[in-house]
């Protein structure tokens, strides 16, 4: 097992290296440059050239790449061109928001998706099954940003139950410890701040949960259906075991393997930034900031953020693979 993990970690190195190279060449091909967003319309060619020179952008691309890699290997991701703060700081400030959002969204998706999938599978072929499957397909086919706007319009603007945007009400002066707003509120016993931060999470999380919920529901349904047809379930039934025991011990434990994998992969993709959801709710996570950074041609932020996201994503994939061998002893790692 240990050797497997080490080998997989080593395999990440060439992937990440390839990603830095690809990203670097690719991003610097973006038309315009940071000087355009800094100077705006006022920029004269001379001014532009001076800024480009100051930032080292007039050097050959491979020299720039070499400098970038040298800094990267010493753990320095550089400074943002638009906010003039270290990229690492920017990331650490926004990533907790995305983590909180992902956590709540996945809780909703798992909490509703798995029971619904089980329910549909046990009633396969009935009208209730058709309705559940149909609703989950609708979830997949609805544009996320449209769903977000609908929730916002109904529950925030019209009914006023939830705040429309942001992570925390500006009137609340909360103490920051970890950057996780809900957690901070709980740690410092500022209950109103925790509750407010949570309320800010609800609508974005509901929006973000729609696709994972649908996917988890459908995987659970398919998996439960498959396991239900196994001989050992029939044996359990004929032994006269109660439905609860059959469901818990025989069906669900075996059916959860593919579901666990899917949950891992979905978590990875949500953590990589819910660009659309964060934009709709003006939620200060990594997704929305990335899109702004593309507009600003903020190369250090783009490189740093995408690299960090890729590392998180690849590590989660690794954890999924490892956890698979723990859940199912029959799977052996090579």
């Amino acid at each position, binding site marked *: 097992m240990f050797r497997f993990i080490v080998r997989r970690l080593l395999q990440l190195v*060439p*992937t*990440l290296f*390839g*990603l830095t190279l*690809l990203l670097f060449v*690719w*991003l610097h*091909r*973006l*038309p315009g440059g940071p000087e355009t967003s800094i100077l705006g319309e006022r920029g004269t060619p001379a001014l532009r050239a001076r800024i480009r020179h100051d930032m080292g952008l007039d050097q050959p691309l491979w020299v720039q790449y070499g400098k970038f890699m040298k800094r990267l290997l010493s753990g320095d991701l550089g400074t943002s061109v638009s906010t003039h703060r270290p990229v690492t700081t920017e990331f650490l400030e926004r990533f907790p928001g995305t983590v909180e959002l992902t956590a709540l969204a996945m809780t909703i998706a798992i909490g509703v998706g798995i029971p619904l999938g089980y329910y549909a599978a046990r009633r*396969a*072929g009935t009208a209730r099954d*058709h309705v559940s*499957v149909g609703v989950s*397909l*609708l979830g*997949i*086919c*609805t*544009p*996320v*940003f*449209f769903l977000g*706007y609908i929730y916002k*319009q109904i529950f925030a*603007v019209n009914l006023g139950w939830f705040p429309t945007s942001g992570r925390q009400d500006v009137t609340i002066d909360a103490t920051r410890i970890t950057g996780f707003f809900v957690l901070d509120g709980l740690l410092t016993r500022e209950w109103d701040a925790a509750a407010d931060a949570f309320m800010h999470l609800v609508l974005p999380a509901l929006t973000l949960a729609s696709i994972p919920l649908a996917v988890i529901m459908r995987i659970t349904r398919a998996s439960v*259906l*498959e396991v239900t047809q196994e001989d050992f379930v029939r044996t359990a039934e004929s032994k006269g075991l109660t439905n609860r025991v059959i469901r818990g011990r025989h069906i669900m434990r075996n059916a959860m393997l593919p579901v666990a994998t899917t949950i891992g992969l979905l978590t990875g*993709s949500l953590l*990589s*930034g819910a*660009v*659309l959801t964060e*934009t709709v709710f003006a939620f200060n996570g990594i*997704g929305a900031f*990335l*899109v702004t950074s*593309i*507009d600003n041609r903020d190369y250090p932020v783009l490189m740093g953020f*995408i690299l960090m*996201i*890729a590392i998180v*994503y*690849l590590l989660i994939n690794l954890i999924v693979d490892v956890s698979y061998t723990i859940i199912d002893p029959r799977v052996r790692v090579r």
Partner: protein
Amino acid sequence: MTLLGGKKERIDRLGELAGAPEEQGRSLWVEALRRVRRNPAALVGAAILLLFVLIALIGPFFVPYDPTDPIGIENGEVRSGAGIIPGPSAEHWLGYDHQGRDEFSRMVVGARQTLWVGVVATVFGLAVGSLMGGVAGAAFALGGLWGKRIDSLLMRVTDVFLAMPSLLLAVTVAAILGPSLLTVMLAVGTIAIPIFARLLRGSMLAQSNSDYMLAATALGVERKKIAVSHLLPNSLAPVLVQGTLTLATAIIEAAALSFLGLGNPDSAAPEWGVMLADAQGYLDVRPALAIYPAVAIIITALGFTLLGESMREALDPKLRK
């Protein structure tokens, strides 16, 4: 075990289980087609798609107004004034859009543009992805040590693409190419490249151990010929299914790009994604302007998804009895 198995389906299966003689010698595709035809979900999906394609192809010839003509604008104000966008009437079935154009005509003509975006994006992703996956799979299956290296290299490339969040990948492509309709198509298609590549390669590897491959190799058939006329055709099924599903996501992702301001800059040309993105600014005034294109996108995506999922189930050997 179909997506929406009906009574007929269950009766048929009972018959098979009771030992009714199976028809002999049907090919994978004939069998799959039979299963798709018996599946109500597939039929619903196919009906939606047929309607969509019909509207897209012939609808634009019958629209009552020019979809780009701001007929509702008088003196710079949308008619019937006070900043209110007029709703449905006898002359304008779905009312005006925010620039005083006939919404119904825009919806109909938009179907063609939307279909076009989805098809071009999918074909682009499928072509490039299949080329990568096909070369990797063939090299791995037939190419010996060097083949395995080529395969490994190509798969590392797809890993790099997959390690980037998909929407971000599209946004970067869109930003590099500059805003245009073609950009949207290419950006959305790029997301699908690694998926198609991995899928075709996986499918080819699964086929490479089959008896007919052994037979062809034993008979001394040229390796290039084995790859092209034996391995590839037998491995294409999952790719085509994925293509149907990608058509659905492509339409949705194109809408997302428009929403992020990276869509077709020519918003006079009606496309559902652009219309939906534009309408977000008028939700307070007239939410229907967002709802029409949204519902159209959802129904169309649903059609592609239903058909694609049914095809996937029909081709799944585990489900074939």
